[in-house]
């Protein structure tokens, strides 16, 4: 997973606003159900979890199964009461964790 995750988080908001967050990471999301040219099953390797925290507190989590499309995309909302930082973590079946952060100024 060489590519940087793509995030869309507003850079500023008013206190109490409900903002929308969009995330995407590049990943083949190999289901484990496909076979290679020799007929051998291709082992499963997916992003199995996405966790988003705001100032250290979890605000969104997805438990992901192979039925999520390649380059997993998620959209969700968060009500912001203070300025801070969103931290994102995607967990690969192989143990790799990809992270990203983005701050928001709340007035």
């Amino acid at each position, binding site marked *: 997973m060489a590519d940087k995750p793509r995030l869309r988080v507003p850079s500023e908001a008013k206190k109490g606003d409900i903002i929308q967050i969009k995330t995407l990471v590049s990943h083949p999301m190999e289901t484990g159900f496909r076979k290679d040219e020799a007929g051998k099953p291709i082992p499963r390797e997916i992003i199995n979890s996405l966790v988003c925290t705001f100032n250290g507190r979890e605000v*969104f989590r997805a438990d992901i199964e192979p*039925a999520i499309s390649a380059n997993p995309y998620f959209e969700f909302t*968060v009500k912001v009461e203070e300025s801070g930082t969103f931290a994102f973590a995607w967990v690969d079946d192989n143990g790799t964790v990809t992270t990203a952060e983005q701050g928001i100024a709340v007035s």
Partner: protein
Amino acid sequence: MSSLTRRSALAFGAGLTLGLVAVDESAATPADAAAEIAKFTGGKATESGEIAIDLPEIAENGNTVPLSIRVNSPMTADDYVSEIRVVGDANPNAGIVKFHLTPASGRAEVATRIRLGGTGNVTVLAKTSTGKFFADRQAVKVTVGGCGG
């Protein structure tokens, strides 16, 4: 509608659909989907009409089908949607994804892109912090399945 009636109706409807199309032998059965649903609700009755599901009626490419979900909920500390479960009865595994929300979500609205292995029903379930369960479903006709194989 009791959960029993709902589930058997679901299974029956899905069975009819599956009967009409060529099904990959590895596909989940409506019984698998029903089991996944029962695992989420613990067998409790579900209410319908509280979840808006945005899915195409016909998906030409089962590899990437846009799915948006909106659950009616005040999303306050006392009453919020804590979990949303998505289940499909035409995939090798019935489970698709599970979302965990908090009152800080503000709205119970999520969107993603899913794979559908064939024509079937997608059921969306929601659990509230007050112990209620909601369920709604939508049928999707899939032209080219998205599970390889």
